[in-house]
């Protein structure tokens, strides 16, 4: 308990770091996943840009990378991170690798949620003479917004989990904190404090996500 009071400033700093890593990952991975998910949706059979070859390739790529356990993905992608970011460890490298992994996961969530949009609604937009950009921007994404917000909230929670794992190979944040000062010092109270903070963070974000989704669905 005494050690926790001593460590308190570092705990807060770790929490801020987690939020920072997860937020930036959600931004980059969110955009990457959205584009990849849109590409999957739009090239599917019967869709606006139906293309069997492109869909097949994207599908296989996502299927290859998505199931890799994150801790292995981190190690495997380290050379790429070093090449792009200039360093294989530290927060920027972690954010890069996390974003990459998250893109694949998010793409499936985006694809699934876009598929819930009634094809007839897209057809009505086409019948009105709208082009693809207008249909995607002003019909497809707004129609799927509620489920998309919930999907991204789900991903946020998963990213908190993944960022904690990243603490194992040199990323900062609550995972790293719990590992360094809790697990390795045989001080479960410190670990529990980190766990408690993570729970609070996840609850807050889930609450916010539900609220936004409700507004998007206007129910």
């Amino acid at each position, binding site marked *: 308990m005494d050690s926790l009071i001593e460590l308190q400033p570092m705990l807060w700093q770790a929490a801020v770091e987690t939020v920072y890593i997860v937020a930036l990952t959600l931004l980059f991975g969110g955009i990457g996943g959205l584009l990849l998910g849109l590409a999957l949706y739009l090239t599917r059979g019967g869709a606006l840009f139906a293309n069997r070859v492109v869909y097949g390739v994207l599908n296989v790529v996502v299927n290859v990378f998505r199931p890799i356990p994150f801790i292995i993905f981190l190690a495997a992608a380290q050379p790429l991170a070093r090449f792009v970011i200039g360093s294989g460890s530290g927060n920027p490298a972690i954010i890069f690798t996390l974003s990459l992994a998250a893109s694949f996961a998010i793409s499936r969530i985006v694809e699934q949620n876009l598929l819930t949009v009634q094809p007839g*609604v897209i*057809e009505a937009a086409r019948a009105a003479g709208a082009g693809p950009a207008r249909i995607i921007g002003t019909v497809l994404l707004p129609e799927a917004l509620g489920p998309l917000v919930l999907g991204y909230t789900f991903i946020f929670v998963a990213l908190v989990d993944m960022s904690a794992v990243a603490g194992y190979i040199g990323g900062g944040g609550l995972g790293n904190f719990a590992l360094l000062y809790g697990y390795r010092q045989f001080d479960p109270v410190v670990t529990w404090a980190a766990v408690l903070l993570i729970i609070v963070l996840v609850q807050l974000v889930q609450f916010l996500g539900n609220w936004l989704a409700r507004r998007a669905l206007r129910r």
Partner: protein
Amino acid sequence: MPAITLTDVVKTYPPREKGAAPLTAVDGVSLEIAEGEIFGIIGYSGAGKSTLVRLVNALEPTTSGSIRVDGREITGLRERELRSVRAGIGMIFQQFNLFSSKTVWGNVEFPLKAAGVPRDEHQRRISDLLHFVGLGDKAHARPDQLSGGQKQRVGIARALATNPRILLADEATSALDPETTSEVLALLKRVNAELGITIVVITHEMDVIKSIADRVAVMDSGRVVETGPTFEVFSDPKQASTKRFVSTVIAGTPHGDELDALRARHPGVLVSVRIAEGGVDQRDVFALLARHGLSFEIVFGGVNDIQGRTFGTLTLAVTGDDAAVRAAVAELGDDATELPTSPTTSVRPTEGR
């Protein structure tokens, strides 16, 4: 110039699996739809009518044949050109297909934005349209707050936003109850009469055809099997599938169990008489039977009104002297048929594909 001309239109889909035959949804259809008319296309689900209508506004590419809309060939146009064709053709749907993320106003505004109509014209246009369809007070409602009939009205307002000359209605009333159906049909009639818009109505409900179509085409297995003015097709259906459709809304000649039941209940000879405006007049039939000293009662059938013209088939149980009955039937000629007396062996007109 016809509003829409289809010539030998074919639409095939690639086979589901390798080696299977391609699926032919529309199989050599030729039709001419005149400007300002309400043209009905009726058929069972799978007859190809929904596919056909999607070829007219190029939501789907045509495999072969020619489609002219207002004289302009639309097969083979580029996607960008097709968008302007589509803006000139409104479309409404069975499931309404409103944008649930937009208000009623936003739904009607969508085609205006897509067509690049200047923003300062939107207000007036949308307000006019919503008043025309009777939803002036619902501009800020969301689609999920509306009833089915109201949703279809929004659909109609949205379809009319860009002042199209043609409106395609794909099973537009099939999801509605009978009362709402007649409201929506009345609105479509107004669209046709007041705005002069050519309407193509796709349906599997003969009632819809009966109440609004000037002319009708009957589709079966991707082909148009019969076409003509609605009154003629109703009063004198030629093809088996047409007869089947007609029998769903019009009581014709009794057959099978119906006929046996009638015969058990009524003495005398059963005679079916076809009544049609410009053909046989009911009064003449009754006077003629009286002249032959016969008494009769009407036991089956009905008289229908299609666009102000009447027709129908009445089955009479005629009693009296046998020779007199035969003489009367002979005098009525082709329009009267004596129904067979023994258990029915006659061809059932309303059966068989």
